[in-house]
């Protein structure tokens, strides 16, 4: 009974947060299936520690798992999502091809950054964490976060493909 209650609570947490976690992982990896692997791995660790983290901030725990696991995904790649039916068709978007192309351009531009730059920008501009929160979460100095943000932003602004996309 306790197990079922725990599982239901965990399932609600996953349902409410998975879109953001998979997106975070996608921004870090640039690859959707790898992103889902990382997110799934992070949630599995969260489930393993659920009793300890459920009263705190389990989202932060999963986030940190994803960021750390991104550095060693190749070690874990034997554990992959089980095959499952394709996701049912979603309501059509106005300009699906255009959106996909823009998405790919963003992901390619992020891939040209260093891992640290990608991570810091994703935490800062996708999850809206402060520089201090990012420093705390990554275990690095706030000054390092600040300089990494600045370096990543200037690289994105100078990115030729992004500039071409913006003017097209």
């Amino acid at each position, binding site marked *: 009974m306790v197990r079922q209650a725990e*599982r239901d609570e*965990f399932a609600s947490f*996953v349902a409410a947060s*998975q*879109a953001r*976690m*998979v*997106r975070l992982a996608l*921004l870090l990896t640039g690859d959707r299936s790898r992103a*889902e692997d990382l*997110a*799934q791995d992070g*949630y*599995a*660790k*969260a*489930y*393993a520690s659920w009793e300890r983290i459920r009263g705190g901030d389990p989202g932060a*725990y999963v986030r*940190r798992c994803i960021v*750390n696991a991104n*550095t*060693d995904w*190749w*070690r874990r790649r034997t554990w992959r*999502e*089980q095959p*499952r039916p394709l*996701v049912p068709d*979603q309501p059509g978007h106005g300009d699906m091809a255009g*959106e*996909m192309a*823009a998405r790919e351009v*963003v992901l390619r*531009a992020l*891939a040209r950054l*260093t*891992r*640290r730059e990608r*991570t810091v*920008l*994703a935490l*800062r*501009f996708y999850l809206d964490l402060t520089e201090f929160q990012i420093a705390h*979460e990554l*275990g*690095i*100095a706030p*000054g*390092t976060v*600040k*300089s*990494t*943000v*600045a*370096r990543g*932003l*200037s690289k*994105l602004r100078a990115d030729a493909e*992004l500039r071409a996309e913006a003017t097209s």
Partner: protein
Amino acid sequence: MTPLPADRTCPVDLDFAEPHPAQLDLDVIVRRGTAIRRRRRIAGAGAALVACAAAASIVVGVRGASFRWFPPSPPARPAPAIPAKPIDSQVAENPPVTGKLTLLSSFPPHWTTVAWATRRGDVCWASYRTPMDGATEDFDCPWSGADVPGPGRQGLSIPLVSPFTGSDLPDQAGSERVPAFGLVTSRATRVTLTFFGRSFSAAVVPVPLGKGQTVGVYMVWLQVPASASGFGSSDFSGATAYDAAGRIVARHGPWS
């Protein structure tokens, strides 16, 4: 350090539309999480057995018995200068003053970490996998010329941790290993850091500053306790540098 630009907004929308919503498999997650729990329980029981054996050996006076909670620090590497070869744009943007990068570590396997002083006087390090797949995995120039130990300055900098570098290491009963970097006077040959109350040490690598000067750079592998919910520079409680004769040449801390 790179100056901050005036405009600090992100030029791209990271909240772009996704064609298919995320739909993770809860059953797989729960199965995997349950397996991790089981492994942790087994590891905990194993550690308790080792503790009992260690205590018993002390009681009966067994000589030469040693019980290691954690694997030893990776062997210190000599510090050969490797030919100048820009790793990528990071190094190209911060060219080494001597034209050469200095090898800090080749641990773990498939990882290389190098350090160098730039023409501006900053000291940088970079870690990358081999093969690199075209990208430096982590890079920073955290120290300016004013941070380099010298007369009238601290002989040892506060260590900085990098959670990004080389974490493809086997889990140690659920704990993780992270490297810490720092500067130390070039007279030092070894540095010991106290992190979460445990000591970790590594050799100091001399990095050329130009004009015949060098600074010591260290990269120490630390073990983060499995019980820690996070870690950072505030988890260090002290750092000590020793010369070749084992004398203390610089000390930082203890920090509260």
